[in-house]
């Protein structure tokens, strides 16, 4: 007797199913079921996972193994009926109807929900087996079953699921009677929630999460037993002893459902080609591209490469894909939106010729196999970056051009990670907030490790406590469970036919976005192409820089026309003058630049790729830098590897190289090597990594390599799995890094202005960007109602150079619309603040904002007097009678002398209004009262000894690769300093390091070339000194009452009367959290 399970809820029915689709399929195979249907609630999200798992099993066990057949289906839940329906499509056409039905329901509903009615089922369920699962009393379902049976006479069944409540036989008899009456045959189903009985606990925990209750409140909502698991045929036979036909029918239905996901054939949209066959159009465009890219004739190698790629594309039938991307890029260009391909696409000369990427094949080795390969049997992946402020235009263009029924974003499955798992399971299990916070507190960033037993002991928790032990186990179980679907950053699926016949489409949380139910791995597994429409802030910045240069009489540049190999640019990078430059502006990169000393473009490619978790974890950084500086001879482990590693001095740095090592040195076939890479990244769940590791190391040892080298190669590939850069991607990013540093070097004013106008982006706050600009000798002018616009602008100075005028966008909380009104009604300028109110129609609060930002200084009004004047305007709109400023009587007010502001106060006010100050640096004012400090500018020459520095914290970083070391960057009026805090010191000064805004650090200086580090020994929080800035220090009465914060009725966060609080608000830093 064989049995097919037709009703299985996987964990893609979020917070309900308690097993992964993979687990269900594997278990079904173990139990010897003849078929298994994955039927999630109004969803097909889990079916591809099951399909991939089955494929993997097939590959592992060989074709001979008896594996269950996978049936794709969904459990339809209707708004107007309490009968659930299992819909199992028989063929491709019926599958298309099912996805359209689900799309219909989902597009009607808000994100995550699906509104379907019985009528929709009657209209759109032809060609499916429909199994009714009555939820309430059986007789209530009779009418619905009868109604559907009249629509689909031979496809409607009554599903009988045992309930294990002591009345099973009676219930099954009743079901049988219902089946008899409605003439819909009865079929046995398990209504499975989990693959194994041990998941009952997890199922209960998920129920609690769904209802937002703790486990002690669950009561009868808990599963009474663990029987809703996958069961072997023998068990089902015992339960259905009196209804053998119901069991037999399961296999009959399974046999009828012949649809398999592999039938989904994907076709590219064909409007891209017009009347021309796609391949011809691609060839023509490539030819045009050759002419454009190589005005003096293309080298033979390039021509050969083009021919090779064209042939490959033709063979694999991808031309339409290239053309689709080309069209999108063309659209962006026509709108003046800057874009550039990233990732492996830069491995293709076709992409270069089509203008998708800008890195020429002369610079990098193009490994086209990394991009498209015939063995891989999966589509290439072209990712294109667009300006972050204008990407939405591109997205809406795609929707408009192809329609929402043909284009959709792909989903990202949000999984439970350690932190969320601990928090949510802890909450359900009734752990106190403190305990869960403590448990998860040690986890930095994303992790899948669960709660660490050592950590639990440290917290003084008793692991032998049953409840706690259960919690820890459940946390381990739930990690990796999908939590909800979110939208992918920009992966677009575009089809020739209807997309909703491929996969259900639902509304995204964002307006005007629709997403499909599958994520990028699912798409890959099915061989569906996607185009990644990504956003990149630096592109916005570069475009704005180009515009500004052109506007102020410069040349018109594009990424391709920026002069290459410019010596001053590289000189600038060699001294780590890189604030604002793409990719190399981070603290780690800035430290690395002077050691690396980039002299040519390829050095930048390496620079971008090397300071990454992959090479750092693989221990590749030091060997490389030693070799580059000539401290270590460049040696190659073998002759064949010299070819692979020649460019990088014998040290593998790129993904391609790691793959090639696997091929050349460990004897992998190219497809095996690719599988190795992928198994690191996405297929962790299947647990096949161990075999590959043995094979890799074994292969290398056989070929006579050192075990240590083999180990380090493997560990690097492991690191690459998630964080590695392919060479092509590094090259694409290096291109932007080069262009941005060229701009910074030759057009510093335009670059700084564009950088400020593209905020938020990058690593540094406006204060640091402005400071860096001023250090480069650019005059920065304050915000002024009579000169500024919303954006920061450039103004021509008398001496012909450009000055940067700050714009209204720097004022916190100021609206763009108000700025537009100010500019529009400006005329010959505003004589007084009231004119702004009358002419530009600004609200009193906007006028106040301007006063706080000292934007009336031009009118001879100090900040305080301006504020005093503006405060008198209370009405949002001028009253008609007093509208005339010449004749209006107004109110004669006595003249008032407000206390004058001193520098400290002005500066604090600047920070309050704009988060930056052009007047002074806080440290400049505080230094007279702090003794024994070394200014940052002197650190480069100071003797190497115990040194004290003090400065505002700009960055605090704790990279995952640095084993708990914290890097601080402090800023004073002379420059920045780099502080290294070891974990032991951190533990001692935790509060100061975490909470301080102004820190005084004592430690030993270390210098390597021009890189200076201070190894912290003592960290003091000096933030309270910042409070002194705003107040004259000789004030008679205690300025601050430490307890004054606790004064009732004043929300402490808002008022921030405590100096430390004030400091925190004024000088925010970019923190890790």
């Amino acid at each position, binding site marked *: 007797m064989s049995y097919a399970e037709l009703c299985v809820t996987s964990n893609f029915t979020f917070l309900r199913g308690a097993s992964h689709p993979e687990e269900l399929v594997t278990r079904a195979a173990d139990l010897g079921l003849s078929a298994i249907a994955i039927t999630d609630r109004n969803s097909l999200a889990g079916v591809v996972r099951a399909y991939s798992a089955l494929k993997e099993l097939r590959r592992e066990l060989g074709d001979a193994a008896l594996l269950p057949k996978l049936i794709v289906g969904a459990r339809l839940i209707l708004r107007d009926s309490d009968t659930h329906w299992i819909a199992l499509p028989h063929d491709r056409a019926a599958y298309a109807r099912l996805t359209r039905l689900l799309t219909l329901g989902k597009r009607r509903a808000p994100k995550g929900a699906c509104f379907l009615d019985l009528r929709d089922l009657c209209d759109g369920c032809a060609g499916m087996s429909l199994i009714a699962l009555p939820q309430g009393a059986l007789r209530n379902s009779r009418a619905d079953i009868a109604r559907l049976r009249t629509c689909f006479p031979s496809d409607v069944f009554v599903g009988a699921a045992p309930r*294990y*409540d*002591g*009345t099973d036989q*009676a219930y099954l008899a009743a079901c049988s009677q219902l089946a008899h009456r409605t003439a819909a045959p009865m079929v046995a189903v398990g209504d499975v929630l989990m693959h194994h009985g041990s998941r*009952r*606990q997890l199922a*209960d925990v998920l129920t609690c999460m769904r209802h937002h209750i703790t*486990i*002690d409140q669950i*009561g*009868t909502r*808990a*599963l*009474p*037993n*663990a*029987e809703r698991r996958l069961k072997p045929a023998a068990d089902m036979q015992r339960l259905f002893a009196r209804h053998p036909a119901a069991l037999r029918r399961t296999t009959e239905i399974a046999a009828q459902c012949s649809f398999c996901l592999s039938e989904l054939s994907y076709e590219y949209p064909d409007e891209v080609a017009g009347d021309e066959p796609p391949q011809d159009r691609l060839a023509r465009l490539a030819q045009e591209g050759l002419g454009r890219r190589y005005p003096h004739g293309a080298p033979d190698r390039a021509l050969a490469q083009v021919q090779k790629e064209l042939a490959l594309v033709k063979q694999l039938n991808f031309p339409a894909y290239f053309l689709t991307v080309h069209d999108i890029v063309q659209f962006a260009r026509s709108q003046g939106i800057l874009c550039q391909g990233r990732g492996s696409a830069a491995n293709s000369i076709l992409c270069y010729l089509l203008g998708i990427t800008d890195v020429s094949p002369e610079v990098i080795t193009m490994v086209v196999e990394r991009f498209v390969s015939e063995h891989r049997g999966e589509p290439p992946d072209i990712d294109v970056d667009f300006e972050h402020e204008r990407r939405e235009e591109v997205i809406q263009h795609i929707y408009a051009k192809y329609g929402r029924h043909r284009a959709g974003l792909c989903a990202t499955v949000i999984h439970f990670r350690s932190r969320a798992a601990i928090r949510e399971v802890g909450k359900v*299990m009734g752990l106190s*907030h*403190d305990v869960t*916070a*403590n448990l998860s*507190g040690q986890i930095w960033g994303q992790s899948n490790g669960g709660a660490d037993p050592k950590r639990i002991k440290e917290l003084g928790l008793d692991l032998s406590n*049953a*409840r706690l032990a259960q919690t820890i186990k459940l946390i381990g179980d739930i990690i990796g469970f999908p939590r909800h679907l979110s939208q992918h950053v920009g992966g677009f699926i575009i089809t020739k036919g209807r997309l909703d016949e491929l996969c259900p489409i639902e509304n995204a949380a964002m307006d005007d976005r629709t997403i499909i139910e599958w994520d990028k791995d699912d798409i890959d597994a099915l061989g569906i192409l996607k185009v990644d429409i990504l956003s990149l802030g630096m592109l916005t910045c570069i475009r704005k820089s180009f515009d500004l240069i052109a506007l102020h009489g410069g040349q018109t540049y594009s990424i391709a026309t920026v002069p290459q190999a410019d010596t001053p640019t590289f000189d600038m990078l060699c001294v780590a003058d890189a604030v604002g430059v793409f990719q190399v502006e981070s603290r780690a990169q800035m430290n690395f630049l002077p050691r690396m000393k980039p002299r040519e473009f390829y050095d930048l490619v390496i620079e971008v790729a090397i300071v990454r978790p992959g090479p750092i974890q693989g221990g590749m950084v030091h060997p490389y830098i030693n070799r580059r500086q000539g401290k270590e001879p460049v040696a190659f482990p073998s002759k064949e590897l010299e070819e692979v590693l020649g460019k990088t001095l014998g040290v593998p740095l790129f993904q391609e190289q790691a793959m090639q090592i696997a091929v050349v040195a460990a004897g992998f076939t190219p497809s095996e090597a690719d599988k190795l890479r992928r198994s690191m990244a996405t297929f962790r769940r299947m647990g096949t990594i161990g075999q590959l590791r043995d094979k890799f190391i074994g292969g290398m040892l056989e070929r006579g390599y050192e075990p240590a080298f083999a180990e380090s190669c493997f560990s690097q590939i492991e690191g690459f799995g998630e964080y590695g850069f392919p060479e092509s991607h590094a090259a694409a990013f290096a291109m932007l890094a080069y262009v941005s540093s060229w701009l910074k070097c030759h057009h510093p004013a335009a670059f700084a202005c564009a950088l400020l106008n593209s905020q938020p982006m990058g690593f540094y706050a406006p204060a640091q960007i402005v400071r860096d600009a001023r250090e480069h000798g650019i005059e920065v002018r304050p915000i002024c109602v009579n000169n500024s616009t919303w954006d920061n602008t450039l103004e021509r100075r008398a001496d012909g150079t450009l000055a940067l005028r700050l714009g209204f966008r720097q004022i916190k909380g100021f609206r763009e619309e108000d700025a537009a009104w100010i500019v529009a009604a400006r005329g010959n300028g505003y004589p007084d603040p009231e004119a702004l109110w009358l002419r530009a129609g600004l609200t009193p609060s906007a006028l106040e904002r301007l006063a706080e930002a000292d934007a009336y200084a031009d009118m001879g009004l100090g900040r*305080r007097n301006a504020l*005093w004047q503006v*405060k*008198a305007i*209370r009405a949002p709109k001028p009253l008609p009678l007093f509208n005339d400023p010449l004749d209006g009587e107004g*109110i004669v*007010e*006595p003249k*008032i002398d*407000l*206390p004058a*502001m001193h520098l400290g106060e002005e500066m604090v*006010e600047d920070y309050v209004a704009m988060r930056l100050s052009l007047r002074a640096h806080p440290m400049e004012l505080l230094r007279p009262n702090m003794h024994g400090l070394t200014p940052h500018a002197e650190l480069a020459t100071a003797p190497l000894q115990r040194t004290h520095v003090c400065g505002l914290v700009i960055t605090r970083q704790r990279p995952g690769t640095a084993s708990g070391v914290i890097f601080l960057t402090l800023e004073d009026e002379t420059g920045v300093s780099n502080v290294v805090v070891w974990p032991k010191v951190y533990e001692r000064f*935790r*509060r100061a390091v*975490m*909470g301080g805004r102004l820190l005084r650090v004592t430690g030993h200086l270390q210098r390597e070339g021009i890189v200076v580090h201070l190894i912290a020994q003592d960290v003091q929080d000096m933030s309270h000194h910042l409070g002194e800035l705003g107040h004259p220090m000789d004030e008679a*009465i205690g300025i601050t*009452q430490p*307890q*004054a*914060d*606790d*004064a*009732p*009725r*004043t*929300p*402490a*966060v*808002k*008022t921030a*009367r405590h100096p*430390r609080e004030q400091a925190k608000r004024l000088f925010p830093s970019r923190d890790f959290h």
Partner: protein
Amino acid sequence: MNAQAERAGLHRGMGFSDARAFCRDLQSRPADVRSDQRFLHSLARWSERYCPWVGLDGDDGLVLNIAGSAHLFGGESAMLGDMRHRLARTGLSARLGVADTRGAAWAFAHFSAGQTGARLRDLPVAALRLEAKTCTALQRVGLRHVSDVMALPRASVARRFGQDVLMRLDQALGDIPEEISPLQEAPRYAAQMSFPDPIGTGDDIMAAAERLLAQVCMRLKTQEMGARILQLTLRRVDQKSQQVELRLAAPLRDAKRILPLFQRGVDAVDPGFGIDQIQLQATRVEPLEIQQIDHTGSKVATKLDDLITRIGVRVGLDNVQRFLPADSHIPERSFLTASAAHSRASGAWVHLRTRPIRLFGPDPIAAQGTRPPQTFRWRRMFLTTARATGPERIAPEWWFSDDNWRSGVRDYWRVETRQGRRLWLFYTPQNPGWFVHGEFA
């Protein structure tokens, strides 16, 4: 927050995760606003030792009008010292301030703790009890102290910062009066009656009780309260007193219904040489709203309450219990027993599954196999199975370790015996054994 937390840099209104970053072994408890309030009220009652006029100030302050009582403690500063001393002895940290107006006293208490001789004009503007927004606005134009505001023309200030600033200033300076509303004293529900001639018979006592009850019930009615415990104190001529206590099953203020309930207690009273004073007090009261009477009347419920009281008078009110439904699959845990007087009957008993009317032990019986035995002995009875339906499988609640469920999963069967008893048997497959767990009606 304790002093240690404050030293570690924590303050009110801070996010929990931020606070934890400051202080790793932070312990937190949810704020209990109600008991804070209760404590503040009792502190207010204690403060009546200083003056009769005590009011609340916000969530965490008390305001005392000490006009006319300061000299009893040797002047204002001596009174303050005494207060500080006594509060410190109980472990409370308090900030105290005394001044001629309520506003100024508030300012001193909040902004010059410990410093005597501070002047109002030197305090920050926040001392004027202004909104946080107004405070910052004032500070930003450079008006940091009360004196700065005082120096400005009033019209200009009012135009920019609103009338509120002036009002608060005037209140602090005493130009505008500001009253303190003292806390209300809790009403007392008691009445007493003295007799020129001692009385002795039960009827007389009941008659007196009736009059007192009428007074007490009237007072209860005006406050919309009902009595839960009534105490009748009878003072005898020989100065001894006797008490009759009546515990009611539900709050009540209907004299007609209460009076008969006293009968039994009064009957037991030994009047000795006579009783010359009777006192009636409702020692525990609960809110009881005035209810609209409808024509069907909620008679049944009141009768049940009366019955419970009546039985309670005999056996002790707490011994009268009722069953309440509990939400669990586990039969033993699917009901609760609670004191009838202190719980309401729950309307809904959700019947997910058929359950027996009585539950036992469970009693083990000798049997084997996974299906119910044909014949078995239970409680010295020899029973033969006529019909068995099942099994219903119930697994233990994994999050709650229950010793009764050590044996693991249970398969329950309903067994009808030829002898007429319908029993609930279960089998434990993980730990083979059969048990009788209950009997159906």
